[in-house]
């Protein structure tokens, strides 16, 4: 993927309606993954578009993982961390937030809308927030349409 990538959206409303985006979700082992489990325990349905990749800490997320996801055909990426101050590893979530802020700028330079890469905080108890964040993310990416990267 080079910096000259262009975006090829499909503006047709009918196609947009059928479009099921593929989203990669990076979740930390301690808070957000547990939050996703919590959402499961309450059995609230949410869109099935997010494939979860568990890491021990969001501080582990290398920007190349996000790039790889887009390169392999993901239409969106979501990173969910522990709330500030709650990180199991003290501050890995804040490192992730910093990296995300930089990454967004790089992505936009490459023609990938910043909204396709969302960063948020979900605690182990926030099952409802998890459902809300995932639902919003899927809606956002549906609206943005399929991401096509042209080399």
């Amino acid at each position, binding site marked *: 993927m080079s910096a000259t990538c262009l975006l090829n959206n499909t503006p047709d409303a009918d196609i947009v309606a059928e479009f099921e985006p*593929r989203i*990669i979700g990076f979740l930390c082992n301690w808070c957000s*993954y*547990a939050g*996703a*489990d919590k*959402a*499961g*325990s309450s*059995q*609230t*349905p*949410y869109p*099935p578009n997010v*494939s*979860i*990749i*568990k*890491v*021990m*800490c969001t*501080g*582990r*997320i*290398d*920007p*190349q*993982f996000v790039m*790889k*996801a887009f390169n*392999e*055909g*993901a239409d969106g990426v979501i990173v969910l961390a522990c709330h500030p101050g709650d990180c*199991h*590893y*003290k*501050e*890995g979530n804040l*490192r992730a937030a910093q*990296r995300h802020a930089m990454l967004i700028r790089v992505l936009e330079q490459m023609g990938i809308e910043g909204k396709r890469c969302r960063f948020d905080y979900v605690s182990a108890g926030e099952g409802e927030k998890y*459902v809300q964040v995932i639902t919003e993310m899927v809606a956002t990416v549906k609206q943005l349409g399929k991401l096509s990267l042209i080399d």
Partner: protein
Amino acid sequence: MKIGVYFCNCGTNIADRIDGGKVREYLEPSGRMSYFKTCPFLCSEDGKVFLEQDLKDEKPDRIVIAACSPREHEATFMRVMGQAGMNPYLMQMVNIREQIAWVTEDPEKAVKKTSVAINAALKRVELHEMLEKQELEVSPAVLVIGAGPAGLKAALTLAEAGRRVTLVEKSPVIGGLPVLFEELFPNMECGPCMLEPVMAEILHGEHAENIELLTMAELTEVAGYFGNFEVKIRQRPRYVDIHQCIGCGECFEPCPVSGTNPFNNDMDEKKAIGFTFMGALPNAPYLDPTLCTRFTEGSDCSACSAACPMGEGVIVFDDQEQIIERQVGSIILATGSTLYDCSRFDNLGYGRLPDVKTALEFERILASNGPTAGEVVTSTGEQPGSVAFIHCVGSLDDDHKPYCSGICCQYAFKYNHLLESKLTDTKILHLYKEIVSPGKEEYALHRAARDNHNATFIRYDRISDLAVTGENDGQKIRLPDGNSINADMVVLCPAVVPTADTEKLGAMLDVSLDRFGFFEELHGRMDSARSKIRGVYLSGACQAPADIQKATSQGMAASGFILSELVEGRKIELDPLFASVYPEKCAGCKVCMRVCPYRAIHFDEENSVSVVNGVLCHGCGTCVAACPMGAIKANHFTNEMILAEIEGALK
């Protein structure tokens, strides 16, 4: 490579929503999967027996288990793998219950999502490596810093279990703050009497030989990590041989110089050689070189030594500072708390008006071994006709300390009770923001204060609503409503804050501080006796304002952790999920050292490479993502594994 997939139906939990047969059809064409087996309940006894036998029969190289959340049963299945002779890290679990079956309405979409997730796991697990738990020899000895109620109870608990304890106390006496208090809330027990049995056990009890008490000592250096700390302790000279001295006090009288006594908040004087207070333990005086003329003037005075009935050599004028090195497996911080500086409140007159006292000063005034021998008198030597207690000074205050200090109401009501019995006619005023007295015994003192017809309660909002000014015959306090009231004595109940050395100790041990400056616990509720640094434990008021009950409980809790985590003769197991540096790739930029939250990385100067200490590493992987050379590997979460998983989830 032979990779088996085990699909758990979880009764109907999974099977009702996800058709295992369709998942199998979906996955088969990729050829990654060698076999696919379903089981009704993989975590049940039958399920585990099946899995173990099947692993023995099939002898797969890797397995994927699609079942509940790994938070539920990953450890269970890893144990079964171990029993079947398979390395437990050669498995990847896929959470198809919480994260798919229970949340996906459309069965077709559930099958697809499951297949994608298993496909990602298949790609990832191919790259899994055999990992082994490493074992490490450890020292069962413990360093306890601070000999207040928390440190004393911790040291004693550990010593009783046969552990070697080095108990380091900064001051010449043990017992912490409460040993200075005549009586204690909630039951008006005598402070020294309550602590003395514990202190006697520490000094002379059955297990005292396990405790090395170092008074006038401070931790100066720490190296190493959980299980193997190397510590250096600096002990200031006492100039008195604690083992020969019988504590008779004959040396005080002949001493020609005096100075203010810091243990009575400088409210009276003591000789250059003396006890901090009568009854102080260890039962030996100390010599203050800032007062003794041998040190201040270079004199050859030896009046104290000449008066010693035990002969020469008990007072050691050439006593030297010592650096004591010890090896310990764990460290308990029990450094206690102090009071917020009341001179920050100009409107309260503290430091300017002689009869505005802090709670600590008032405790000493009440104490029979204090500066007034327990008589409550003002600076002019008269009994006060009125005493005002200002609660919440600096507490519940966003400009100072936003928290409730928790203990002040209790001791203020204790003062109320003591004043009532000592000076029956004295008027008492309580100025407060909030009153808290929860607990099965704590309300009694509060109610007694409320029932005292000499006591008045007035609530205020902000400390700036009050103003204490000096009058000819005492103090005048301006109240929030604009009226004024006279008080012969004003006692401030300040916020409880960490001691001055908390920050320095925190930096030395890399133990983080919370936003109030207290040592930060691993978890505020579930793990409040542990710091975030493995092997460093927290007890008492160094972690949050605490009363004696909480302090001693935490001291014992920390001891409990140590007794279960570091068992004599048992090696500690290291979780293999730590990071390691490929030295040939490391450029020596040290970025990893800056991002590591645990100081687990040091720099090998000789080879100019970073080295991760597997004991200290918690396996978060922050350094791995930060390394610009890709020179750090996170076990079980390598770049290759995660990239393969991403690929598998998208292709």
